């Protein structure tokens, strides 16, 4: 496990997505109302750059036709085929046990973003 500098927080607005290279890995770094997150930047489906996607909320329903909108800023949607990923876990909303992108822990220190990169697997 090691911490890597992923750049300054200056100008990093809520809702923004950035591609960064951290510890030799291409990541998408983002910010929502809850803070910062980092995910592997390659969609596991067909390899799009998730940093070109959109940070969104999503439709939620417990019964047919009872639809609401929620989780604003908590979902990263692929720019190509629309797959949705939870930005905290990296897991697909459709198939959380089967499809996911690596998620990394991010923290802010002295105006810099530090991403923790581990040896394997889900890292957040």
């Amino acid at each position, binding site marked *: 496990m090691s911490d890597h500098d992923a750049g300054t927080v200056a100008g990093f607005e809520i809702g923004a997505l950035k591609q960064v290279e951290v510890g030799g890995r291409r990541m998408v770094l983002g910010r929502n109302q809850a803070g910062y997150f980092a995910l592997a930047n390659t969609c596991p489906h067909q390899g799009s750059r998730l940093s070109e996607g959109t940070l969104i909320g999503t439709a939620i329903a417990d*019964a047919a*036709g009872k639809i609401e909108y929620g989780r604003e800023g908590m979902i990263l949607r692929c720019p190509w085929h*629309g797959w*949705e990923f939870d930005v905290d876990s990296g897991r697909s909303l*459709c198939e959380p046990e089967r499809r996911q992108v690596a998620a990394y822990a991010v923290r802010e220190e002295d105006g810099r973003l530090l991403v923790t990169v581990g040896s394997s697997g889900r890292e957040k």
Partner: protein
Amino acid sequence: MAIAPDERRTVEQTEKTDISLVDADVHNYPRSIDSLTPYMSQRWVEYVRQTGFVSPPKDEYPRFYESAARRDAWPPNGDIPGSDPGFATTQLLDEWDIDYAVLNPLYGVSRVHNLDFGNSLMRAVNEWTAHDWLDFDERYKGSIVVNFSDPPAAAEEIRRVAADPRFVQVLLLARSPAPYGRREFRPIFEAAVDVGLPIGMHFGGGGGPITGTGWPSFYIEDHTGMVQAFEAQVLSMVCEGLFVDFPTLKVALIESGFAWLPPLMWRLNKNFRGLRQEVPWLKKMPSEYIQEHFRVTTQPMEEPENPEHLMQIMDMLGRDDFLMFATDYPHWDFDAPDRAIPASIRGERRDGIMFKNAMEFYDFERS
């Protein structure tokens, strides 16, 4: 010819315990409107007489053979195929030693524009099935015909007829005024679930152009292209959250074929991964709802050039209890119990198709 009560048989086959063959699709037809009028109120009997009503609209195309029937299925008395319980019983149940046969009367009550008259016909068909067929031989099991053009009336009829445990499913037709997942049809499924009966959705129906691109010219296109309606129904029932609202609901696709289902599941899953927000009530992959809630009858059996491909398609369906054997008697595309399923399908898989899966799906002994 009416069947006198003392001629009705007590069938010893129903008493044996070693079930080996279930036919999940057999058709009984009223020989004429006169078979139904004994079960209709005076208002509608007089209406039939006054108007000369013969039957609801039937076929969109001339169907190969008259009545779409095997040429040898015409009873000696000259009545239409499937109208004589004695003859049908001899030619089908006795000939093939069938233990149970599910009757699906294809009587188009839903295509009668006068809803009240359609509902009268609906009730009459169910009474006629009970009295003329289920009373005749205990191996017959009934399907509740419903007027899906009037879902509240259909629901009421389901609750009424389900009191007779010889009825084992609710019958819908694949071509409907709108796909069945839409909310206007919910009363039908709610009633079916309440009384604990599955839905059987059979080939046929009508009311609009039979393809997504208008009217084709030939019966061969009608017959082959029915899968379009089944695809639309499966998509609708899954995407509209029917199985979220009714988690115990089961649906048999009857005379739909099944080779089209694996690619439909693949495509639907693929699109769901991107379009999930339209149907966020789905908590599982769409294919999981299909595999859990649907079953399919075999006739008309898929016949690929290479029989091995059939085995591969069965594997692609994702579960071994998905198929239920059916003959479609008395129709011309009848599948013979000893020939339709390739000999290469053996053992448990064969037993499942020939009787076990239907025994599991239909609670024949629920009385």
